[in-house]
């Protein structure tokens, strides 16, 4: 009886559906991590790239967010069982175990995963060399602190996972490089330390704010957001400090992550962002399936060299103001003001600092400098030992 009732309802629902348009060229399921949409960074970037690809190639997309980590496995299985998706993209390292189990269960289903290597013949793994981009913002932060005479630079991280070790290691390396560069250029030996904390969350915005407040109170010139949506809280902490100081623009600053977050806070509170092009990763995966060049078992490495990571620049700022408008965070009318504020903020620093950041980038690209890339806890501990960044 119950079944018949359901079938009846289903038929009714089908009749009620407006006549569908033409058949899509393909279908993609985007399976997001906990936290999901609205983080203005990691997950939204995955959404952005997928949406662009869907538009460009005439595909159709479905988005699923996880409520808890217990959802990862059934989310994936459900999408794969449906058998209607040409590609299933898992956004987030934490889904690796689930994908490792599901991929062999559905050998004909194509998968892609962001931020993890899942060694299965039907999975494309997309990983990022975050340490390279983090070194650039680290160098900037170190020179900023020395330039403004602040005692510390800060970093607020999410959950202690190997992906975040690459951010932390790169940042430490970069700060050290920046401080030495500062000494070389000005002849003064700066005394700058690093304040760092793993908050244990990628979703609790209040924790991000509390952690950033503590660091700013101690005298951090900039706080690097390595915890997705927690950046919203970090920016609040920065903004409140600036209000207290009676200033519009930093210092203190935030350093953005994943997206170009420079537009946040009127364009004069986020000095730069470490861009991690999750959007490009998702777009590329869909393009590969669309063009028939998808190869499972491959690793797609996104680095400085192929612009998969990098420090934010003016060109992508405009693109990401639109991203902010689309997310409802700002309105389109604010665009010129944000761009002007941003230009003024960047111009307030001596040109040689920006040139030094470019120099580091060139040296990494040329292979003259190799940024440490820890994969285990032991290796991370070694990097911390090598670059302790404790104030004397």
């Amino acid at each position, binding site marked *: 009886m119950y079944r018949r009732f359901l079938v009846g*309802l289903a038929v009714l629902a089908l009749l009620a559906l407006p006549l569908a348009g033409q058949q899509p060229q393909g279908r993609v399921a985007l399976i997001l991590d906990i936290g999901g949409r609205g983080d203005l960074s990691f997950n939204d970037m995955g959404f952005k790239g997928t949406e662009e690809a869907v538009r460009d190639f005439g595909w159709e997309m479905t988005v699923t967010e996880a409520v*808890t980590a217990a959802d990862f496995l059934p989310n994936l299985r459900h999408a794969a069982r*449906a058998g209607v998706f040409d590609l299933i993209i898992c956004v987030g390292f934490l889904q690796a175990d689930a994908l490792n189990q599901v991929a062999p269960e559905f050998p004909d289903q194509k998968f892609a995963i962001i931020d993890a290597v899942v060694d299965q013949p039907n999975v494309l793994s997309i990983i990022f060399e975050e340490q390279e981009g983090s070194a650039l913002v680290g160098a900037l932060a170190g020179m900023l602190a020395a330039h403004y005479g602040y005692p510390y630079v800060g970093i607020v991280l999410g959950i*202690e*996972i190997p992906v975040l070790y690459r951010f932390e290691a790169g940042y430490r390396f970069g700060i050290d490089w920046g401080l030495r560069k500062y000494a070389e250029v000005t002849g003064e030996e700066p005394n700058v330390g690093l304040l760092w904390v793993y908050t244990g969350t990628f979703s609790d915005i209040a924790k991000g704010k509390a952690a950033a407040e503590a660091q700013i109170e101690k005298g951090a010139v900039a706080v690097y957001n390595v915890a997705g949506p927690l950046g919203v809280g970090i920016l609040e902490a920065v903004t409140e400090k600036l209000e207290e100081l009676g200033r519009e623009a930093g210092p203190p600053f935030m350093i953005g992550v994943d997206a170009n977050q420079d537009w946040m806070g009127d364009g004069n509170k986020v000095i730069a962002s470490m861009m991690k092009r999750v959007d490009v990763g998702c777009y590329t995966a869909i393009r590969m399936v669309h063009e028939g060049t998808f190869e499972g078992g491959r690793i797609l490495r996104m680095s400085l060299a192929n612009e998969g990571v990098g420090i934010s620049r003016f060109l992508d700022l405009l693109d990401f103001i639109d991203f902010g408008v689309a997310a409802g965070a700002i309105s389109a009318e604010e665009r010129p003001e944000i761009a002007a504020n941003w230009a003024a903020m960047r111009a307030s620093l001596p040109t040689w600092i920006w040139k030094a950041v470019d120099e580091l980038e060139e040296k990494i690209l040329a292979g003259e400098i190799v940024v440490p890339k820890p994969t285990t806890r032991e290796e991370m501990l070694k990097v911390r030992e090598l670059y302790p960044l404790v104030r004397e």
Partner: protein
Amino acid sequence: MKRVYDTLRSVAESILAAIIGLVVAGLILKAWGYSPISAYIALFEASFKDLYGFSGALANATPLILTALTFAVAARAGLFNIGAEGQMYLGALAAVAASLFRLPPVLHLLVALAFAGAAGALWALVPSGLRATRGVSEVISTIMFNWISRFLAFWLVANVLVDPYRAEKTITVLPPSRFPTLVRGTDLSYAIFLAVAVALLVYFLLRYTVTGYEMRAAGANPDAARYGGVRSAKVIVLVFLLGGITAGLAGATQSLGRPPSYAVFSGLPKISNLGFDGIGVAMIGRNHPLGIIFAAIFYGGLQSGARVMQLFAGIPLEMVRMVQGVIVLALALPELLRIFRGFRRRRVELGGER
């Protein structure tokens, strides 16, 4: 006869509440331009169409039955135990800790479960002692203990039980101490039998033993119970210990019985909120062990429904959670009203004293 009537009345109330909840949520869906019919089809098809879906609902229900019991047992004795969340974290980790050594199959699982139950009970001991001896409100103390437990758990994951090769998680539970999968290709493990057995045990305890009678008497009228020779301190501690054990076991069902990763991750993403969800389940199940089993399966089904509503009805997660929230609230309302009415009556009778 009275019991049959009461049961029927409760069931009728719940059905009415569910209908009201569905209608209200449906109107909101409609107002935002989503089709309530396809949404509800997706919601219920997710769990109640085939074995695969139903297994998912049961897998979700497993820990919820146990954490709901924590709240329900205390509520029966007139106490508000919000501490399942924190006790459950430590139970999950204690069960993992049992994998620091090797034991034969079956025995290993039993030892891990004993660890989990003991950890949960231990964590419940301080709030119950404070309540029993100093009259400290158990609501406040258990909420505070949840936070302590949360950060203790973070620390344990990152420093004590950490996997040397993967810093984001604890060591993986050894296969002999895992719950085997019950239905292949799903999340459902044999842990569901543990949860149901514990619920039946609690039912038996409350209904047919002297201790259970004392617990219920303390809840129904603490002064009369004291007059009748019930030692309220003993009842409080017993209720909390029992709740701690079931909450600890709830954590164990996740670390020992939920694929794919038999471990606890940093940030506790897989187990967070199971304790709080248990309170909702207890409310829907009228704080009755048997009602809780059905309520948990229903609640677990709603959780699976979240996935299918997103995948196939195209409804964003925020909307899905709104729908779930309205339905759960509507279903919990009758019990909630009953509890508050009880409190008020008691307060009036005793002249403001609880």
